[in-house]
């Protein structure tokens, strides 16, 4: 391998890791991980975006630190080490949200703290960051994080439109559907609607052939 090719393949691997998280290993629709926040906070697009930002921040931070420490972490106590690293970033995140974004902090409630036990983050630490270089771990975090955000946005898009009849992003109403907005299907904002939307979306993606059947 000549010197010119090396950075090229490196950057190609970097983009490959990012793209992987979006479709092939999409955390929600393919791996079916991190379901609690996916269902609980997708009442509105705003909440979904806030949650995604939080998860991306924690995932980036934990992947970065864990891949930096991967050579000096003893095999036996690796899980407690990962948990402490993740919990530290979640604490930072919840303090920042409480100070600067109080409405979002209120509406995310305990689900913000529950990012600690989100299987996606511990899963990436164990399966990827503990074995790969810092750069690739960052790429993996970005890919998986954006894949998670995308799924959250898709689910909340359907729930918000059906449940309120309009789409509101950061307090600005993008559009509203005439009949639906005066008489919305509140079912979709409530818990049963979350299960139904996610189940039907999973079935739809399988039917379209995006996902494999079991």
């Amino acid at each position: 391998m000549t010197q010119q090719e090396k950075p090229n393949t490196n950057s190609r691997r970097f983009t490959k890791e990012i793209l992987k998280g979006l479709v092939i290993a999409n955390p929600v629709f393919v791996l079916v991980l991190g379901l609690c926040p996916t269902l609980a906070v997708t009442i509105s697009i705003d909440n979904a975006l806030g949650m995604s930002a939080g998860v991306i921040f924690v995932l980036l931070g934990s992947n970065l630190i864990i891949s930096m420490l991967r050579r000096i972490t003893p095999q036996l106590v690796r899980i407690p080490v990962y948990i402490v690293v993740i919990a530290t970033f979640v604490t930072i995140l919840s303090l920042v949200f409480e100070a600067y974004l109080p409405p979002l902090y209120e509406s995310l409630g305990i689900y913000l703290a529950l990012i600690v036990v989100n299987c996606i983050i511990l899963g990436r630490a164990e399966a990827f960051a503990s074995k790969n270089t810092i750069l690739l771990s960052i790429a993996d975090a970005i890919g998986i994080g954006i894949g998670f955000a995308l799924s959250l946005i898709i689910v909340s898009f359907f729930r918000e439109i059906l449940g309120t009849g309009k789409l509101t992003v950061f307090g600005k109403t993008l559009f509203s559907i005439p009949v639906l907005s005066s008489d919305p299907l509140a079912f979709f904002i409530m818990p049963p609607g979350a299960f139904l939307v996610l189940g039907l979306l999973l079935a739809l993606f399988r039917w379209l052939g995006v996902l494999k059947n079991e």
Partner: protein
Amino acid sequence: MNNDASLITIFVGMVIINNMVLTKFLGLCPFFGVSKKLSNAISMGVAVTFVMLLAAIATSVIYNFILLPYDIEFMNIIIYILVIASLVQIVELIIRRTNIALYNSLGIYLPLITTNCAVLGITLINASNSYSIVQSMVSAVGGGLGFTLVLIIMSGIRERLELGDTPKSLRGLPVAFVTASLLALSFMGFSGLL
């Protein structure tokens, strides 16, 4: 400041009205992962309830006697998750040493409980409602029983569902989500109970 909700209100609320799984979406991974067979569902439910009770006692002691007096409540996430992780390890060790039959039936589920959001969830709910130690214990047992109840109902339905002729793309998880949706809908009927 203490919460003066009565123990029965907390218990009934946790078991059916604010069910962990169906209204708070906590513990969904085991809910969909372990609900394929009835016997596994019962074992998982018992293990979760037990760990939840221990975790609730430990964390509420820590919350009331360490975090509150020294004004370091912001540390609760880190401390709670460490307490839960070590509790699970200790319980696993004790069961393995004392009752090998129980260990064989529960053993594989115990490590999974550390990352079960229902356990951390109940300790955070207790802290945010500023429950006393007794109230925390009742709410943990209620939450655990609610989790077990839904897991048993779900596994009964899924055992039947396996026999049915489900459309190809709905087979497996998607139809389990739709079932959970109908279950959640029926549990909403309890919402006016208290």
